[in-house]
């Protein structure tokens, strides 16, 4: 970590603001002495923000901002199904009950599998410029090695935590679903942590055709576990912010100020599936049955 070994450079410049974290500016005799700083990361804390709104925000910040971001959303408002970019509802969902119970279904801009999230889910998203994390190549396995190490710090002392076949697990039970999107010079790694879950909600999800080897043939309730059985909620959030803060200079940003950070048009892939799409999925499931 270069911030632990600051280099000293002396140059003329206009005044600059003081940052928190492992870096600071010194002013002396008309010259500004600057110590090499850790890259800045903007921290946005949300509570109960609808997951569609959160994903729209993330996609916007990934594509239309040049800053690094850490977004923490403490729960979403209503139970919602979120599929990866290539997800097909007919293959991944029990579409009949989803339609009957009017569960919203979102297709997100990142890869990966399907989750059902609700007010107990904890969301942590990290958006980084690749040059600000030079040890990480902009490819999925490299990003996940970095994130696995970061969360390893968060769960230090918690028995059995590991990144296992790209899942966050305690032992052989998954407690967090993660996914990535990588664009030219930036990437996002975001996670929905299963703080708690309603067994009934799991019934909306089919067993996917591709599963990690360690899953064996377990159904959802045998495969996942509740994070609340391992760590306090507030503890997890603060330890995560602290772990990120070891690599970045953190700056809290209010959601109301986001417009000044992300300007211009950008590709928007995240969307809510329509009722027509879900009904078509149900029809195609019936035909292939």
């Amino acid at each position, binding site marked *: 970590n270069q911030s632990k070994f600051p280099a000293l450079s002396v140059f003329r410049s206009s005044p600059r603001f003081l940052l928190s974290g492992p870096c600071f500016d010194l002013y002396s005799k008309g010259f500004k002495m600057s110590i090499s700083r850790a890259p800045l990361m903007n921290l946005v804390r949300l509570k109960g923000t609808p997951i569609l709104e959160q994903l729209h925000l993330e996609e916007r910040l990934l594509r239309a901002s040049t800053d690094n971001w850490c977004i923490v959303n403490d729960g979403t408002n209503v139970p919602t199904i979120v599929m990866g970019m*290539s997800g097909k509802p007919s293959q991944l969902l029990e579409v009949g009950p989803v339609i009957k119970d009017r569960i919203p279904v979102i297709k997100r801009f990142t890869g990966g599998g399907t989750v059902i999230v609700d007010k107990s889910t904890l969301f942590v998203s990290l958006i980084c410029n690749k040059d600000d994390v030079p*040890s990480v190549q902009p490819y*999925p*396995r*490299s990003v996940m090695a970095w994130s696995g190490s970061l969360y390893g710090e968060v769960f230090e002392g918690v028995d059995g935590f590991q990144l296992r076949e*790209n899942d966050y697990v305690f032992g052989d039970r998954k407690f967090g679903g993660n996914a990535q*999107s990588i664009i*030219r010079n930036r990437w996002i790694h975001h996670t929905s942590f299963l703080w708690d879950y309603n067994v009934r909600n799991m019934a909306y999800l089919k067993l996917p055709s591709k599963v990690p080897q360690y899953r064996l043939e377990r159904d959802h309730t045998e495969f996942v576990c509740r994070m609340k059985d391992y760590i306090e909620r507030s503890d997890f959030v603060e330890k995560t912010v602290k772990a990120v803060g070891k690599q970045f200079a953190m700056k809290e940003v209010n959601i109301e100020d986001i417009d000044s950070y992300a300007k211009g048009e950008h590709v928007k892939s995240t969307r809510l599936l329509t009722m027509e799409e879900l009904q078509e999925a149900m029809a195609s499931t019936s035909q292939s049955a």
Partner: protein
Amino acid sequence: MAARFLWASRVASHLRISVAQRGFSSVVLKDLKYAESHEWVKINGNKATFGITDHAQDHLGDVVYVELPDLGRSVSQGESFGAVESVKATSDINSPISGTVVEVNEVLTESPGLVNTSPYEEGWIIKVELSDACEAQKLMDSDKYSKFCQEEDAKH
């Protein structure tokens, strides 16, 4: 390594181009041009074929989905026109050169793994009608691209 060189030699023979065995494992074909974002382009008159390189597919992992652009869409050098999904990640595919999409490899919809097994042949992604052939001058030849990949990998 030997098997990959044998595959590359057969591809090169078919395409009537030469290939050099590199110190690192990725295959680089001599007759193509390359972008820093690891796409290749084969120019043929005013048309060009794009794909992602062997280096890219190797680092991405098993490709499970390819998002293809619509026919007739304009693509601009350096800008994203589609994506691949692998290992829970969507990764943008950036256009190495500007043009208009005239053909997409629809076989990738059912067989996205061709991007891994045959990145320079069956795994081609789109064909475009070029809008400015001079843009190719900004791309790397095979020697420069090989060196670029070595330097990139050496940093990590």
